[in-house]
């Protein structure tokens, strides 16, 4: 279980996230929905300790993130913004560098098959298309079947077939291993199809958090829910 309490991180331009509190239960798929620049990536970066928060706490299974960083990161895979790729190394070498443990290295060939990059195993990643780089980034995040996976705009740059495949793989991993996912997107339909919980973030603040099933019982689409929440928030300013 991931518990975030009063998390605030403001950059020099005063953008960021303000006083965000939420809980993600084990086995949940939390969809973070928000427009560009709303603070989704900042929240995810804070959950991975890539940025230092100004205040607030993040706990995973009751353990504080910073004090138990190594233990928590051993079971966490992530893809944040554009995939971190060493252009002069092959797909296999990139995954070797991304391995969280020596055990993950033995999983590289399996995960390359999952993202359909097995035939490019020994090709330099610098020559990959945007979609292939995204697949490689996803492979790095999903390698070794981590207990928690944090994915920032995971289907960016993927073709329709790729989007469906990745979505199905995320769902099967969630069902098979009870993996907890935190997935961000600015595409409402993507969150609707994937998540069990949906959080709307707007202007650095958590506007709403509800179960996707409940939302869909009240609104015709996730898009309608999102637009209503955003308009409510704008009206409140």
């Amino acid at each position, binding site marked *: 279980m991931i518990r975030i309490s009063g998390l605030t991180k403001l950059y020099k331009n005063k953008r960021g996230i303000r006083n965000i509190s939420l809980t993600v239960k084990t086995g949940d798929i939390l969809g973070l929905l928000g427009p560009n620049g709303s603070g989704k990536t900042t929240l995810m970066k804070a959950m991975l300790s890539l940025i230092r928060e100004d205040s607030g706490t993040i706990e995973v299974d009751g353990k504080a993130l910073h004090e138990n960083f190594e233990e928590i990161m051993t079971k966490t895979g992530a893809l*944040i913004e554009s995939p971190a790729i060493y252009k002069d190394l092959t797909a296999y070498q990139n995954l070797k560098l991304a391995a969280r443990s020596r055990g993950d290295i033995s999983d590289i060939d399996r995960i390359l098959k999952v993202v359909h990059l097995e035939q490019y195993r020994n090709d330099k990643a610098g020559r990959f298309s945007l979609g292939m780089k995204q697949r490689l980034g996803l492979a790095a995040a999903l390698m070794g079947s981590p207990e928690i996976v944090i994915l920032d705009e995971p289907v960016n740059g993927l073709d329709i077939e790729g989007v469906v495949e990745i979505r199905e793989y995320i769902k099967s991993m969630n069902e098979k291993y009870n993996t907890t996912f935190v997935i961000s997107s600015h595409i409402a339909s993507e969150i609707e199809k994937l998540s069990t919980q949906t959080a709307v973030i707007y202007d650095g603040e958590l506007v709403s958090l509800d179960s996707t099933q409940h939302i869909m019982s009240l609104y015709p689409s996730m898009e309608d829910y999102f637009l209503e929440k955003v308009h409510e928030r704008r009206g409140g300013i």
Partner: protein
Amino acid sequence: MNRTLFALKKELFKLAHRKKYIVFILIGAAVSMVRWGGSALIARITDGQIAVKTNMTLEMLPFAVEVLVPIIMFIAAADLFTHEFSADTLKMCMMQPVSRFKLLTAKAAAVVITGAASLMVMYIVNIVIQLLSGGSLAQAPVTLLAYIIDILPLIGIAFLGILINVCLKGSASAMLLCLAVYAAMKYLGLYVAGSESFLFTASAKLHIMILGQALPMRILMYKMGILFGSILILYSLSYIIFDKKNV
């Protein structure tokens, strides 16, 4: 310890895939060849009246320790810090289950190992050239000891490069600043007499103090104190900045 070694292996793997380090070793070898060629030319022109028969491997040590290897280490530091930052791969390092202290230690160790390995390769290259030019290898073991001793001050220079690289975001600007600060520290004595002896860069040719001169133990300890104190300060400052870094 296991996690640090795992991280170190990854950092060395990254550096080993960069060909530019081989280019710098080749430049070092070329300088040695030019020096040997120059000596041979002088001997031929003067019909053997001026024959330069010296321990060339030892004579090339200051060039390696003060010029070539510092440049290689500055490049390695830029590759592992600022270049990774600008290429957006630093976040991959930081998402590993390795604390920032261990990650910094692994990266720093990789920079020092690269410098030490380059120095050892330069030793082998110079020994081979010396051998091919008909020189004696009688001094080779002592010369090897000198090369090994001079790895110590290189640790300080590596941490100078690391500190500059954790402060900046661009690898080109970091490289320039590294060279400028190193040159300023190295030649500070030209402007402020005697001042350079207060800096760790004055220990660059440590082998001379330990092997060549019978320095009083007190002075030697003072020099070593400055060197190791500087390393500790540079390491601590690097960690403080690296720990706060947002990627």
